[in-house]
């Protein structure tokens, strides 16, 4: 299972990765104006033509002012919320690691945008023949035995590509090697059931623009109880409704027969009344 380890302490904010991503995926540039973040952040956020973004954050670290850079992109979760949500499996997790998207079967319902806890999938609002766009961990390059374009471009090796277990070990080794220099938490190790993009940082991860307060269970855990109950509810209803309607209709039928019988009696009595003094009961 391939993964990426992004160490924001090594990132110097040169954004070679943003260019490499646009270059390899041939994404057009956006009309941007001035800056969006606290530093030179552009464009403002991920978009249909920007699949990865360096965030510029001014913060305090150990009492001193610091300027730290985070990298926003698809986290390629192990059990992705978007794949769980997508009604037609247009988004699915591949064994090699990347979560890939197939526009030929996508409905465009945008449920994946709602479900994604990291707010990553983007939609082409301005086009008629639209599709969902997001970072694909360069699945085509990985398939050809190459590492993703942003890993290849990073001059200070802040982004490293490799086997997830190995990268996790490397991340913890780095934390143990200089404990003062890192927050003792690898973002992505457990979030939403664990992701294939792991972040190391010397400031709390939320300050780098990463989503906070995420649970450790995968998204499917939220919808599983309801979805799992379908067959039981179906059968239960089938039996229950059938029984109730049977009982009620049976009773009504009997009541109807009873009334029928009584009506017959009345007719019969009226008929007797006309003859010698019927015993009107």
């Amino acid at each position: 299972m391939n993964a990426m380890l992004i160490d924001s302490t090594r990132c110097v904010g040169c954004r070679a990765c943003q260019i490499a991503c646009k270059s390899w995926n041939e994404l057009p540039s956006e009309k941007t104006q001035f800056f969006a973040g606290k530093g030179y952040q552009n464009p403002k956020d991920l978009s249909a033509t920007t699949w990865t973004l360096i965030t510029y954050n001014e913060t305090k670290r150990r009492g001193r002012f610091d300027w730290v850079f985070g990298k926003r992109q698809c986290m390629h979760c192990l059990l992705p919320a978007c794949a769980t949500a997508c009604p037609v499996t247009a988004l699915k997790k591949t064994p090699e690691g990347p979560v890939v998207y197939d526009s030929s079967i996508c409905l465009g319902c945008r449920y994946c945008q709602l479900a994604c806890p990291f707010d990553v999938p983007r939609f082409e609002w301005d086009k008629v023949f639209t599709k969902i766009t997001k970072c694909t961990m360069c699945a085509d390059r990985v398939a050809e035995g190459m590492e993703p374009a942003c890993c290849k471009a990073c001059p200070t090796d802040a982004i490293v590509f490799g086997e997830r277990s190995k990268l996790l070990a490397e991340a913890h080794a780095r934390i143990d090697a200089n404990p003062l220099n890192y927050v003792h938490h690898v973002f992505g190790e457990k979030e939403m059931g664990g992701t294939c993009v792991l972040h190391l940082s010397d400031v709390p991860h939320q300050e780098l623009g990463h989503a906070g307060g995420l649970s450790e269970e995968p998204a499917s855990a939220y919808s599983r109880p309801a979805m799992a109950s379908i067959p039981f509810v179906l059968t239960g209803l089938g039996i229950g409704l059938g029984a109730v309607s049977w009982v009620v209709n049976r009773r009504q039928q009997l009541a109807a027969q009873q009334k029928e019988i009584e009506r017959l009696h009345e007719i019969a009595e009226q008929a007797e009344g006309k003859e010698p003094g019927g015993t009107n009961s």
Partner: protein
Amino acid sequence: MTSHWIDMIHADVAMVMGSNVVENHPVAAKWLARAKERGSLILNVDPRYTRTSSFADHYCQFRSGTDVAFVNGMINYALEHDYIQREYVVNYTNASFIINPDIGFHDGLFSGYDEAKRKYDAATWQYEMGADGMPLRDLTLQHPRCVYQLMKRHFSRYDVDTVCSITGAPREDYLKICRNYTSTWAPDRVGTWLYAMGTTQHTNGTQNIRTYAILQLLLGNVGLAGGGVNALRGESNVQGSTDFGLLFHILPGYNPSPLAAEQGLAAYNAANTPTSKDPKSANWWGNRPKYVVSMLKAWYGDHATAANDFGYDFLPKRDGDYSHISLFEAMYEGRIQGLILLGQNPAVGGPNSLKERAALEKLEWMVAVDLWQTETSTFWRRPGTDPASVQTEVFLLPACSSVEKEGSVINSGRWAQWRYKALEPVGESASDLWILDSLFKKLRAEYAQGGALPEAITKLNWDYGTPEQPDRHQEPDVHRVAREINGYFTRDTTIDDKGTPKSFKKGDQVPGFPMLQADGSTASGNWLYCNSYTGPEPKDNKLARRDGKDAANEIGLYPNWAWSWPMNRRILYNRASVDPAGRPWNPKKWVIRWNETEKKWEGDVPDGPWPPGEKHPFIMRADGHAALWAATLKDGPLPEFYEPLESPQHNLMSSVQVNPAIKLWHKSNPELNPVGEEATYPIIGTTYRVSEHWQAGAMTRNLPWLAELVPDAFVEMSQALANQRGIVNGDRVQVVTARGAMDVYALVTNRFQPFRVDGRLVHEVGVVWHFGWEGIVKGDSANVLTSHVGDANTMIPEYKAFLCDVRKITGGVA
């Protein structure tokens, strides 16, 4: 750079001052990161908290323009605590030299200052010579007039409190920087100093570098692995264009271009060839006549004979100052009719851009050669100009990019590397080589019918394998040019090479510049590059070598990768990295080592073949010793602090407000050269670059992906200043100086903090200068704000400190 990029890894402490290495040389950050992993400290001193500061271990802010005060204080700190490598200083620097008895320094001025001419007479700064013609020395460094004592007295005025008051640096940060950096005085610890335009672009730019050199020499860091004074140059071949003399004051190989007073080659040689009586001084510039003659032979070939001084008379003799500022001042006065530009964009990059753009209109014709339609090529239709009123003819020739032509470039670390041609030039673009070659062919044809001094052109030795009629599909043979630069024998000669006679045939390539002769038997376009192309075949082109084998000392010299001048030496002055007996100061990271048994040097190419102790290490200096005391500079033998031309603060060190030796253009050419006062322009302004754009911006603002990252020019200011002016992040503001104004966005940030200077708060703002009216993203260059005032020695403009004001643009005024 005296060392090179990879060498930074060996630094125990790396000082980044006057440079934003992480933003403007990002890949260098890789080597600093590895140094950091090895546990070395990165220090960063910058008016603004940049990406380098966030990368560094310690950061200290200081007011733009006060670099001399800051580092003089560090020198004083080192001298006071005796953090100096004594053996290195005594043996290898001129600390022990005695100075002329009449030397004096009073109230900020050295002796010999002529107020009217604003010039020094350096007679009183010279060494006191002994009877044998050798300078007097006191190795105990006690003599009151020895350089060491003069320095102690001079720098003692820069105590920590005064320096912090001038520079606005917080005291504890300043002390932390001093303590950490001066810790490299120990022989086995070494510090490297990385600087760039932040240091040089001041009125006392040269003295800024002098302070670094003095401190590095005192700490014994020059010549060692992980040491040296390293200028991080901004362009891929600015080192090469300087090596080949594209500056008014030098010819290729740093030989001075002839002055009007130097009539004839003999006079030139006499004036420019230093002599030394000290047998132990190599005085390498003593070989200058060989190099100049060889160059002239390369230029004028057979026509250059001893009789006609090898064509010396053809060279133009200059009189006065022809630097960039004087050039545009002359152009403004209409004294220049024609301008040829090869890949330069002064309309954005030049200081006081409004005056320079106005000057361009005075031209009759202009030739611009570039990859893009630059601002300079369309100055005639810049915003606010009526093209009809501009009578200049403009030729805009399309040049091809670096991947569409073959040739070599030399990087900041003096590695000359070969580039292969991967693609055909796009459209009708052509390489600059072809353009120059074709232009010359046309000129030769024109001058065949006569004109002023036609021989200067027609007799040029110019044949690079292209037909007489230029044809774009026939490139000049770049290898032939490279071989001419290296140099060849013009006739069969035998030379004694260290005793053994060696004979060469006519046309053989010269193996190295020690073989160059002054008698015209050798020709070499640039002596520094002799040894770069030592054979007739492309495989002898050392610039194209790609062998990654490291030298024996395994410190990342990579001697077989490409080639570096001189003679493939990777670290300059590396003889200073060993003690007089030849033992490396720092055995763990030795650069060169004397092998006693085999009687030869190991490791890097040494500064000269002599065994240890036979020659002083600083071979390019006449006396062979590093210059703590530099008598050749125009504004003082020792660095003295003066305020920038436009400064909000009077000089606390002396009554001399501004560098006494600079030319004051606002007095000689007042038009469009006003100087702002603090009253109307209270805020310090500076200019800088961002990682995503490059120089005048043509090469990046025309690229959609880079344009998207930094789309607009902006001014960065502190939160305090923003609050004071009612400005919010993202507002359109106007930055205005006495010379010009520009509308930009305001980036309010905590990365700028006000400075406490002389007890009061002073604000500083910084503006990015890459922008112009061409390209995908447009704007204006911060150089409409900067002024025509330059450094005393180099005339480099003072971009980094001026006075400005920032006003919020309210309402409709967009």
